[in-house]
């Protein structure tokens, strides 16, 4: 890949590389998912084992657990590439850094958000939600996690040079993802109650589209500043 490669092709190469590298260490891939499972388990232990009561808090629990797991995985988004100089190479390659970071964010979603969306119904079922709500849960978390990955990429790029940045990363990212949480859990809740959940889903989609357009730009700006 050099400056003559078309942007889309370069992005595809970065995405393929990230996915290949991730699958070489499947253990790391599973960590956020295991974390998600454990966190979900904490709530029945801490609140009540009664399914009838858990059903009420299920949307919130699933969303908060997914959010925290996604945040954990964000750490790995840029860390390795920043350490071994790959990120610098991306910035110097003459390619649009925005596109390359978009590709990295897409890989984060494919490796974290999508699996979480698949696992979420299991968590929901363990908390007493009806089986009919499963498609709704999958869709709402899949869509919401897109925005999570995008906003998280901004946070990760802002904290690139900071030592022990995981807590700061969470503090910076969480306020910005709260709207996603609000609409996402609203969609999930409606799905669980059997109501029409299209409205919050459209809002989630709108946030995702806005994020896709703007977040990689902001992340690229932050990465360039951090690499100076």
């Amino acid at each position, binding site marked *: 890949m050099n400056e003559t490669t078309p942007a889309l092709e370069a992005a595809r190469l970065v995405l393929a590389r990230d996915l290949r590298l991730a699958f070489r260490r499947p253990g790391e891939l599973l960590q956020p998912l295991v974390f998600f499972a454990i966190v979900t388990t904490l709530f029945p232990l801490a609140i009540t084992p009664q399914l009838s009561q858990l059903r009420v808090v299920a949307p919130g629990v699933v969303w908060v657990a997914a959010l925290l797991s996604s945040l954990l995985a964000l750490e790995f988004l840029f860390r390795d590439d920043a350490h071994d100089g790959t990120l610098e190479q991306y910035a110097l390659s003459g390619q649009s850094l925005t596109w390359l970071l978009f590709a990295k964010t897409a890989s984060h979603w494919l490796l974290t958000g999508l699996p979480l969306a698949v696992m979420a119904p299991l968590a929901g079922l363990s908390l007493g939600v009806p089986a009919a709500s499963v498609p709704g849960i999958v869709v709402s978390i899949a869509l919401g996690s897109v925005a999570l990955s995008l906003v998280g990429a901004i946070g990760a790029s*802002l904290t690139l040079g*900071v030592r022990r940045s995981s807590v*700061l990363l969470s*503090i910076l990212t*969480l*306020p*910005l993802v*709260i709207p996603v949480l609000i609409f996402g859990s609203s969609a999930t809740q409606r799905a669980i109650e059997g109501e029409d959940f299209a409205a919050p889903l459209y809002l989630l989609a709108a946030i995702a589209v806005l994020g896709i357009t703007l977040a990689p730009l902001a992340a690229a700006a932050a990465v360039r*500043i951090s690499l100076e």
Partner: protein
Amino acid sequence: MAWTWFHRLGSPPYIYSLAARLTPWFAWPAALLILGGLYGGLIYASPDYQQGEGYRILYVHAPSAWMSLMVYTTMAISAAVGLIWRIKVAHAVAASCAAMGASFTFAALATGSLWGAPMWGTYWEWDPRLTFELILLFQFLGYMGLRAAIDDVQRADRVSAVLAIVGVVNVPIIHYSVEWWNSLHQTASVMKLSKPTMPFDMLIPLLMMFLGFTLLFVALLLTRLRAEVLSRERSAAWIREVVSA
């Protein structure tokens, strides 16, 4: 003619002396307006027919909330100016805003809570405006945390500028939240473009407080800006003259 003035504003020694000269012109009017507003709000304005004397919290709550939004916007705009045109003084302005913004956001939340307790029956409510104002507090704290975590001042400036700009989206959300959602908060009765719906004797002290707080912000900003500029200009010659004076 205008460009020369703009360029001079970017020069640290000029800004330092200008800020020193301007501060009293903002500080004293601010003090008068705030004292006047306090008198007006606590004594002169008649009690509300629904909330009695309790509504007087408005005279400190609303200006604090106004400050939180105005300070964040100032921070974001000056951060953007610093980032786009690479003007160091603009970054110093942004840095000076953060602590003030955080404290007034906290004051707005706390006074709002004390007002809500007797009127809404609860100290807190996850109402859109309160929730997003709380998020604003986290944004200020995150900004300060990020700045503190990066040792190199120039990089801290520019990274936190990106954060401030990205987060400015919350400001219109807070302002319009009472119109977009069903909220416990009443809709705007002062910040409307048409005639305000508040009676005169209640409105005047409120406007005095808004203006007084704004002028206070400028005075404090100018003071902090001087401190920032001094600490950033490591070995410039003009500092020698300033500190031996």
